[in-house]
């Protein structure tokens, strides 16, 4: 009986110790920096079934169905190798250092600016013709660009119809790693920019062009051009301002592309 009692006592002690040990192990303060609970949803629900699914069946077509289309911008030849060094210019973002992936737009999105008429604040360019801005030639070679005079100048593209604009891509002059100053891009419904004017890009930090203070950063010209997210803004006219660059006071444009769809 004595041995049996000892066994029972020992077992009880072991159990108690086990409970205390496990609860001590588990009782820890939540460590700092714990990953917060998921936002906008409950914590992950219980195990989803591990399964082998057949390929998903295509969704039935709907009247309002919209397909996604990756828009791969056709690029000209790079005119310098490697990633450009950041220039000694304030408020300039670092170069991407890698190719930009295609952006996504609804199916049917095209470059609405191609061969559309171009007007300018400088009707007599220093070099080239305004048609170069929308002729599809993006090479940084003589004959492919137009140079406007010094100071704040703009070019304007008429899209022919009001359109939903998803992106604008602009190449000023990518022969060398310049930064163009006070770049402002606006969309409007009328050629005089009085109706429905939306500024989609502005890096004029001191509003020296008189269009308001811009919060966007300057950027280094490369063969990829500058992609501007227009967030589907609607308008017919696109105007691009600039005020010289880090090499000289000229305002150059090789090409402007406007990706969108006419408003039905």
């Amino acid at each position: 009986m004595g041995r049996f009692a000892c066994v029972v006592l020992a077992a009880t002690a072991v159990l108690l110790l086990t409970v205390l040990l496990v609860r001590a192990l588990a009782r820890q303060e939540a460590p700092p920096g714990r990953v917060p609970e998921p936002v906008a949803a409950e914590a992950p629900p219980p195990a989803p079934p591990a399964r082998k699914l057949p390929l998903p069946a295509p969704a039935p077509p709907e009247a309002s169905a919209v397909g996604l289309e990756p828009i791969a911008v056709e690029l000209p030849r790079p005119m310098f190798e490697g990633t450009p060094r950041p220039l000694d210019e304030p408020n300039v973002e670092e170069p991407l250092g890698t190719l930009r992936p295609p952006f996504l737009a609804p199916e049917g999105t095209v470059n609405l600016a191609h061969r559309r008429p171009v007007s300018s604040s400088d009707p007599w360019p220093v070099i080239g013709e305004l048609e170069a801005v929308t002729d599809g030639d993006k090479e940084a070679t003589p004959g492919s660009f137009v140079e406007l005079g010094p100071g704040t100048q703009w070019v304007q593209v008429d899209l022919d119809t009001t359109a939903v604009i998803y992106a604008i891509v602009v190449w000023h002059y990518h022969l060398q790693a310049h930064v163009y100053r006070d770049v402002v891009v606006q969309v409007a419904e009328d050629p005089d920019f009085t109706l429905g004017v939306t500024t989609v890009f502005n890096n004029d930090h001191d509003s020296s062009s008189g269009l308001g203070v811009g919060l966007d950063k300057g950027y280094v010209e490369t063969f990829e051009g500058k992609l501007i997210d227009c967030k589907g803004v609607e308008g017919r006219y696109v105007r691009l301002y600039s005020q010289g660059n880090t090499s000289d006071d000229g305002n150059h444009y090789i090409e402007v592309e406007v990706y969108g769809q006419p408003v039905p």
Partner: protein
Amino acid sequence: MMRKTLPACLLMGAVLLGAALRLATLGNRPMHADEAVQAVKFGDLLERGHYTYDPAEYHGPALHYLSLPVVRLAGVRRLADATEAQLRLLPALLGTALVAGVWVLRRDLGRGAALWGAVLAATSPMLAFYSRYFIAETLLVAFTFGAFACGWRWVRARSPDPAAEPERSGRLRGAGWLVLAGAFIGLMHAAKETCVIAFAAMLVGAGAALALSADARQRARADLPGLTLGAAVLLGVAAVVSALFFSSFLAHPRGILDSVAAYAGYAGRASGRGDASWHLHSWHYYLRLLLWWRGPGGGAWSEGAIALLAVVGVAAGARRRGASRADPQLVRFLGVYLLLMFAIYSAIPYKTPWCILGAWHAAALLAGVGAAFLVRVAPRGAARTLVALVLVAGVAHLAWQAYRASFTACADPGNPYAYAQTTDDVPALARRIEQLAAVRPGERAVEVQVICPNNDYWPLPWYLRRLARVGWHDAVPDGTLAPVLIMSAELEPGFARRLFVGTPPGRRTLYVDLLQDFPGGTAELRPNSHLRAFAAAPLWEQYAVRRAQDTGPTKDATP
């Protein structure tokens, strides 16, 4: 001297081989969805000391509680710091213990059979592969083996087989084995609800062993009071151990009731009701899996050597001690247990390959009996050498397959054990998302939305565990979309509609494709389950700039 040290050395070799196949590079395979689910549940226990048993999901608490000291010993306090290898360490250690544990039954199986059994358990591709899984199955198999091995030792201590060992006296003889067996039974219950199938198979196996031996029946009748008391102690210890785990060590007593209530839900799942239709397989699924499997890549897999030797083991060992040195009652027990486990799991429509693991461990033990028998009955000389060589070749074939399964083809769709395996795309996608999110750390952390119907996004919660702001959705959410989106490929039209039709002009953010360099522009969550991922263009540009800063310019810009 040699007779004593040689078996120990051989056993050590088998254990080392088993350990190498189980413990090496544990993090080499992407987390399976089920592992990730367990890991996230474990994270709550690790970080907040909080665990409550959920009768609908996650299985028992043993995996989480027993992993706690293992992960803590590695100095980990947050799930974000835990690694796949740390989580898989406990099952891997228990899988290795299964190899070494055969030695407990050396008197009952015979030394040769125990050694062969250890070698076959070590090299079985299935046993090795699922020892590297952070799920409850290997724990269940290890505890099941512990229960019947200790139970068997207790029975033998009460009523020793006179042919095998001398009788001992004392009321408490074998009490240690009894308590251990009870503890293992409790742990079985705490590991996984399917332990009831193993219980049933063990009970019938024990009944058959008893029924087929008049001598055993006579000895049992003679010791009936002792056996009855023992059974009560066994169940008492099992109940206490189980209750401790299910009650979260007395912090959540309701868990004990829930552990019983859970069977209603699991019965429905087993019958194929509910959302488990993709796990429904034909009755011969396990036979095909283990005997002859040809994967999509064309490679053939077979553990037929174990099956063949197990049949020999049952045929040779179940009748009487002779050329087979195994205890016929143990062989009968194992044979009936194996047969019943196979029959029950084959009859259940719901099948995942790891469910048969317990049966296959018993098959490896019986195969050890068969292998030892074949060596013993072969005439000395060339014939015995030939038999040994054939057996070694069979073991080598198993070991090679185990190596393939665990290392070179661990996530390959052609690997029969890699069931609905997460592909290598998922860690690659997660790395990319983490890099993107690093653009804005801290309170302004980048928000990520994961959108998959039926919450079919596992194991992403594991891979995105370091991110501060992740939302989980089963449909494209209303309101502003996050700058980083991961979604099932079939939701892409809904996303496009939401972005380009459901969002007013001027607020339609431009997204870029994050997976354009992945095959087909998608990441495979599992084979045939595709994900798309997008990032807002401005965020992607920030990310690209940051990456350029980190890696430096590719080359000076030269015109």
